């Protein structure tokens, strides 16, 4: 493994999770930021770098009483926060700032301080002209469109998607904060209410309120903070398309492959080094694409791998150990919670702790296969 790029010295989610009627979106962002600062033993006034998506970092800086020397508002969807971590590593190395807060807070369910649905794309945009008129408007009718081609290519059935739900509900049952803990069988998942065939309700994420934040510093400063540091040793980012219809190959994500390869190469790790994996799952097909495009499974083999229990509790590669976006929570831009679970696992404090885990990978998606970002964490440094 290579030299660490960053140390995570503070990490926290919002005090509440799920339905939070007493905080607006910027209030959730502040709650998460203050919790992460307390975890690091500092105040926001001691932080000189701020990254945010789902709002303007200028507004949050003023709200928290900060005067940052560096901001990043890269908004590429749910994996923005993983990209912010990558960008923060470069900024700290360049000397633009010393301590970075990466913040997420979203009133995805209560929609306080956030525009109400329906979301319609700008009618002059390419998506507005060439996708929205055909009903490709909301994530359940866009993100899902590639999967039939994937299933057809590999001779699979919708049971492949149901296996993902069954496995992740096992992890959710171990997590007190998870929204959906009920255990389901493949047949029960397939018989549930159709949302966008072949996707049924349990294969789709809920919409919840919540947030999270990380405090990042150079690895050399890690011991100046009270907690057990977690190190970032590999990072990757990539884009493909803002239009799902223009994805090059519906059976694989070009962005996933490029981002994952960059992160693994930078970390100098191989797949057998990975003890724990988080794959952003707004819908149940994403762990299938993620396992294959990151190189853990050959094309078409992820569903069988999951069905065999390898990603479930006690399996050889625990995946989405908080229950995932489809069972834990999903505020809209879920990437922050992927990282929070990696940090908990590396600190040894996760509700469903993987014994002895040393290397953890976070993989996020932005938009509908539009962007990707990947981070490699370790607790050895």
């Amino acid at each position, binding site marked *: 493994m290579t030299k660490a790029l960053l140390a995570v010295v503070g990490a926290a989610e919002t005090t509440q999770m799920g339905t939070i009627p007493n905080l607006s979106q910027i209030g959730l962002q502040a709650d998460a930021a203050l919790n992460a600062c307390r975890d690091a033993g500092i105040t926001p006034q001691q932080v000189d770098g701020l990254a945010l998506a789902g709002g303007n970092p200028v507004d949050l800086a003023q709200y928290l009483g900060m005067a940052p020397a560096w901001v990043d508002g890269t908004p590429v969807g749910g994996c923005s926060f993983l990209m912010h971590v990558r960008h923060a590593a470069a900024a700290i190395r360049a000397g633009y700032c010393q301590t970075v807060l990466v913040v997420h807070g979203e009133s995805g369910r209560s929609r306080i301080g956030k525009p109400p649905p329906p979301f319609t794309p700008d009618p002059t945009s390419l998506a507005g002209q060439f996708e929205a008129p055909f009903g490709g408007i909301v994530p359940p009718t866009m993100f899902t469109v590639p999967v039939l081609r994937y299933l057809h290519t590999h001779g699979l059935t919708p049971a492949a998607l149901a296996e993902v739900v069954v496995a992740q509900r096992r992890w959710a049952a171990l997590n007190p904060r998870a929204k959906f803990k009920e255990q389901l069988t493949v047949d029960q998942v397939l018989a549930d209410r159709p949302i966008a*065939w072949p996707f049924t309700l349990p294969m789709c994420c809920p919409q919840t309120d919540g947030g999270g934040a990380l405090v990042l510093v150079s690895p050399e400063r890690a011991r100046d903070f009270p907690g057990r540091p977690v190190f970032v040793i590999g990072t990757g980012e990539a884009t493909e398309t803002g*239009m799902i219809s223009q994805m090059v190959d519906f059976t694989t994500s070009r962005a996933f492959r490029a981002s994952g390869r960059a992160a693994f190469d930078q970390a100098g790790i191989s797949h057998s080094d990975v003890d724990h994996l988080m794959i952003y799952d707004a819908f149940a097909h994403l762990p299938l694409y993620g396992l294959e495009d990151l190189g853990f499974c050959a094309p078409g083999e992820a569903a069988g791998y999951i069905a065999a229990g390898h990603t479930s509790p006690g399996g050889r590669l625990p995946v989405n150990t908080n229950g995932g976006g489809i069972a834990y929570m999903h505020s809209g831009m879920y990437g922050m919670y992927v990282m929070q679970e990696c940090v908990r696992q590396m600190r040894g404090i996760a509700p469903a702790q993987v014994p002895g885990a040393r290397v953890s990978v976070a993989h996020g998606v932005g938009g509908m296969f539009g962007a990707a970002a990947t981070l490699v964490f370790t607790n050895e440094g």
Partner: protein
Amino acid sequence: MKPQGRLMPKITPETSHFWQGCKEGKLRLQRCDACAHTYFPPRPFCPVCAHDRVSVVVASGRARLYSYAISHIPAPGLEPPFAVAVVTLDEGPRMMTNITGCPQEPGFLALDMPLRVTFLDLSDEVALPLFTPEGAA
């Protein structure tokens, strides 16, 4: 499907030839004068080689069903269930569309089935390119 109420495209200078073609019953693509790459959606340069001399070409209107999801969520102007589909044109490019002239059920929507374009008039400016199974009435 009733035509009223769909989200309407707002035509931009770079896309006007496409939408004008749809009103005339023609599916217009663009082809690079330098490398012959045929592409969609419209733009005034080649996305493969960046050449800025490109020609408008009329597609055959033939395509195959690449993938789809059958939405059970209402969308403006579309009554569930309806398939949000992506087709591969014989010329190569893909586009999102809806499949008309057949039930919106998996048994009637086989991947790779041959399709041909048909146009749904929505306004004085806009006709949407939809696709129907080859051989359907």
